């Protein structure tokens, strides 16, 4: 039949436009987020350097990010089973007290340091059901 416009031709184009926008939205969002993140605090990189007068962190940032739970488990076993409430830094050989207070000296905000990431990956570790993270 004819090549004439279908009656709903007018309604279809906005639908398609909306779908295309929907698909491009996350990209735009990422660009915007990235641009605005430049000025603000990037929690991922906190802290870049240990505050003056404090020791370096237990491990490299990437190792800590991937393995902190292993470390915490080992430390927990050390503390609870062996009564060893201090740990030797595997890198520096320096002894550190095993307590979240030690973390909180540099990473002051539990929200920024723990919860934000756990939430992002939809994890609910039960550490803080018993343990105290100094605010």
């Amino acid at each position, binding site marked *: 039949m004819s090549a004439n416009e*279908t009656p709903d031709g007018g309604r279809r184009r906005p639908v398609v436009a909306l779908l295309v926008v929907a698909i491009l939205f996350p990209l735009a*969002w990422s660009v915007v987020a990235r641009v605005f993140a430049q000025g603000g605090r990037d929690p991922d990189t906190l802290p870049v350097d240990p505050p003056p007068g404090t020791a370096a962190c237990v491990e490299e940032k990437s190792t800590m990010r991937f393995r902190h739970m292993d470390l915490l488990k080992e430390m927990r076993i050390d503390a609870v089973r062996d009564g060893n409430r201090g740990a030797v830094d595997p890198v520096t050989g320096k002894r550190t007290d095993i307590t979240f207070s030690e973390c909180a000296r540099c990473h002051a905000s539990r929200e920024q340091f723990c919860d934000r990431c756990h939430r992002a990956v939809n994890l609910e570790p039960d550490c803080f059901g018993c343990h105290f993270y100094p605010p």
Partner: protein
Amino acid sequence: MNKAEEATPGEAGPALVAVDAPTRIDPDLDFIRAIGDQAGDSFKLCFQCGTCSATCELSPETDPFPRKEMAWAAWGRKDRLLSDVDVWLCHQCNDCSTHCPRGGRPGDVLAAVRMECVEHYAFPRFLGRWVARPVYLPLLLAIPAVLLAAALLARDGIAEALGFTPNVGERIIFSYSRTFPHWLVNGFFFFFSFLASIAVVVGVVRFWRALKAGDRQRGSPPPVKSVPASILSAVRAAFTHERFAKCTTARTRYVSHLAVFFGFLALSVVALWVITCRINPLIPDGFVYPFDFWSPWKILANLGGLAILFGGAVMLSDRVRSGRPGGGSRYADWSLLALLLLVVLTGLLTETLHYLRLEPHRHATYFSHLAFVFALLMYLPYSKFAHMVYRITAMVYAEHIGRDLPRPPGGEPARPPAGDPEATEEESS
């Protein structure tokens, strides 16, 4: 014979019988049988009344389809059909099949011809044959499973050889990273996607050349539009589904296909974003999978999956209820639809199991998900999924040669179908 004189028949065009070509026809009996196997034998009943062409909303005014294709199919003119761009301009609305006075189901016949096309232009050819025949299905499903399993078994060895630290995140809670490290999944899929894209390119080039050769042989007029401009128009048409929307009989197919199309697009965009994370300047260093559930990317991916699920469910119900509007269903239709749904279902199931932290189950599901994704993407050049490349190619070609334009004046009149003495008499009278 007013009308005949008024019409300004063009140079040969895709006329039923090329004017100067020898009229002897060597029917390809195997081809006729293959079409009959897929579309049913009723196409042999066609009496060339032209209801199908006139009722088709997508068919051009000049040398409209599918009447001439019905004759070619019955005559076993495989050569002619495989280099016929019109076969791919059909979206199988099945308006033709609904109105066919002979129960000839032209929509199904063209669908069958398209699958013959995919098989014919496949590279390598044996894969085309495998994917087309149900008997090879177990083998085809076993291939990704075995390859993936082998890759996983060899994971640590490969990692060591490539210098990856195999135990990073060894006891980490994101256990996919351990079982299915991203470098492995990405590398695996990159490698096979590369092979598949070679197959796609070879197939498309073969198809394009056949189209060109056919038109040259028939002395068709020169192209009217540059290839890049044609690509632009074709892609726009594909996005808006403007041709699909003209379907009358199969109205639901427009909605379902639109949902699947954009769902798939969304998932592809997200997948590209994810696998390029290490080289993507927009992604912060040290980006860690997975996304936050409320991340726009995650939302887009989830919506995309649901869109395919919705569209696929509509397609499935249309095909199960089958009957006339949806057209008949062939192995090629069922296998693609099943695969698409399996990919999405295993994907969504993996996600659910992940959030539920069901340990071995989510890995098993993810494994099957990856195997199905492999089957979907790697068999793309040979399955019905290939329609995405062949149809776009045909749409580009149609724009290129100005298929929708009227015939240029002063050409030879097209001949009536051979073996129609009455028609010939009338022409002369």
